[in-house]
């Protein structure tokens, strides 16, 4: 194992009867990296995590987490990691501080060391004023922060976050991601699954799962380049409907969709420039046409991956 890897999976597979939940998945995660794991519900994200945190034995394949084999040294793996599950799973009937005390104790922290660390975590998660409140009375966003705080209480080298922001409002999600980036800056490896594609932009690298297989893995920018090679154009103007109709029929035009008051156009870069598109629309009755090139989003990447399973080629219309 290379000393630079924090997580290393090799041919990881898990079957439930005839159903293959995770199929021959291999990847490496670097130390201090925020690694996003994306996929639709049931694509095998949670099953992969459960194997990596030694809650589920792999049917075949191997995984090393923090240098320990999950199959043979589950205790060592668990000591090195923190985990935050999809469903909030701290004790709702205990005060915030007691949850931290309990989980700290579970990792072997004690005495003043534990007390000091608990205060640090309360500070970090902005829950100092809520420390003595019953956990069940906290709103969703605070609960998520507490769960993350509890997962990093023992300063693990890796944290696994399974859909950490599901059902949390956008403001709370943003502050949560600030916490994650702070952690990574401090050297913690973060392995996070999500289905919010905007969040995935925060990750250094992304793995995409479809039906149990890991079909793509790279930085967001590289993924966009390889999977969505189209030129993506944002068009503003009036009376665009007629032009859009005509444009759609042209060779090398991949998609023309209404976007707000304007249009979202994807074209083959070797055939069309932004100016050419603008002229084509203006020629068909468009008024005040302004065309602007834009980056493809991860949503474009995701749709391309799910639709084709092969990078760079266009799905049949």
């Amino acid at each position, binding site marked *: 194992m290379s000393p630079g890897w924090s997580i290393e999976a090799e041919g990881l597979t898990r079957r439930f009867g005839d159903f293959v939940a995770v199929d021959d998945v291999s990847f490496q995660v670097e130390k201090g990296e925020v690694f996003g794991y994306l996929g639709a519900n049931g694509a095998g994200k949670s099953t992969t995590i459960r194997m990596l945190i030694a*809650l589920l034995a792999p049917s075949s394949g191997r995984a090393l987490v923090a240098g320990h084999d999950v199959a043979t040294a589950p205790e060592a793996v*668990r000591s090195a990691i923190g985990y935050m599950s999809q469903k909030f799973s701290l004790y709702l009937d205990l005060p915030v501080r007691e949850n931290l005390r309990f989980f700290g104790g*579970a990792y072997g922290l004690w005495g003043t060391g534990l007390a000091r660390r608990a205060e640090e975590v309360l500070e970090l998660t902005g829950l100092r004023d809520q420390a003595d409140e019953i956990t069940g009375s906290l709103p969703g966003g605070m609960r998520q922060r507490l769960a993350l705080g509890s997962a990093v209480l023992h300063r693990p080298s890796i944290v696994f976050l399974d859909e950490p922001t599901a059902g949390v409002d956008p403001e709370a999600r943003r502050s949560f991601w600030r916490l994650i980036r702070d952690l990574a800056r401090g050297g913690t490896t973060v392995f996070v699954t999500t289905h919010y594609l905007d969040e995935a932009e925060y990750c250094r690298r992304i793995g995409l799962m479809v039906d149990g297989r890991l079909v793509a893995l790279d930085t967001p920018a590289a993924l966009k380049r390889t999977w969505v090679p189209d030129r993506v154009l944002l068009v503003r103007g009036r009376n665009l409907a007629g032009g859009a109709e005509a444009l759609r029929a042209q060779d090398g035009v991949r998609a023309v969709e209404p976007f707000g008051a304007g249009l979202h156009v994807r074209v083959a870069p070797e055939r069309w420039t932004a100016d050419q598109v603008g002229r084509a629309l203006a020629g068909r009755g468009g008024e005040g046409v302004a065309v602007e090139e834009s980056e493809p989003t991860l949503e474009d990447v995701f749709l391309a991956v799910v639709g084709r399973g092969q990078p760079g080629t266009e799905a049949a219309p």
Partner: protein
Amino acid sequence: MSAGAGRPPSRARIQYAAVVRKEVLQTLRDRRVMFMLLFAPFIQTIVLGFAVDFDVDRVPTVVADQDRSVESRLHLRRVLADGTLRRAGEASSAEEGAAALDRGEAAAVIVVPPRFGADLDAGRPAQVQVILDGTDPNRSNTAAGAVSRYFGEESIRRAESRARAAGLPAPARVEVVPRLYYNPGLKSPPYIVPGIAAMLLVVVTTIVTAMGLSREREQGTLEQVAVTPIPATVLLAGKMTPFVFIGFFDVLLLTVAGTWIFGVPLRGNLAVMAVATLLYLLSTLGVGLLISTMSSNQQQSFLGGFLFTMPAMLLSGIMTPIDSMPGWMQVVTVVNPLRYFQEVARANMLKGAGFGDTWPQLVALALFGAVLFGLATWRFNRRAA
């Protein structure tokens, strides 16, 4: 946990303390659970201690005195005198008395036939008829015994005096003189209260632990704990600990109530009782944990716990003697921790038995505790992995 500069405690001890603290806080928070665990058993013991009185007395009895002689009145008064039977009415005939049985107004009828006194005086055989409601065999046996004993003794007395009058030797007579150990008043509470304690302990501890663990599984907190490096033995031992204390508290409360209210004697060394309670709780809590590793939700845990406790109470010798059970059932009682606990509890409290007398039962309880706890840990690990 102190923050002193001394040697840090071992990791397992820190983890154990954390689990215990958490369990205690959770249990203390829920007042209703606390009530169920601590005071409900106490109230139940008091109510049931008074209720379970197998001493049959005051059996409602209808008398049909068809003789109405001095003799018949005297005997009827005497047979009712010791309190086993209670006069509940008069009837003119056996049929009328039997009708009272049908209506449930009486459980026994004593019929003294006409000319009873005259027959006795004349030395002719006289007969008393007893009609019983046999629905409750214990009660009818006791009633029959009371009447038979009285008239049997009277019969012997008459035979002897008749022989004396005729100048003959007295007819042979055998007396079996009883010497009653431990409970000469033949009172029920001293015997039944320790048994009730055993039953309540198993009901409270087994089902509560089984459901508690299932609840954590349902709520997802168990998974969160499973990804920490706490070993299953430490986790399960920590979960059991507060209930061991609650169990001890219950036993203490029941013992105090038993002695003060029901006159349960405490003849033995209380250390025996303490050891037996600890080992017994290991078994009942171990069963609870084991059940929860086999259930997927609280409802199943509860039913599983129930399915264990009910037959276990029945096949323990608490309510009915094991010697009277069919052979195959006696075999089943050998693997029942309740049996050993109730034997130790009764032998210790009533008979003053010490470690020397009860060690086989204590060893059996320790074995059950160890095996059940081991099984629960093993199943827990297998499920978590």
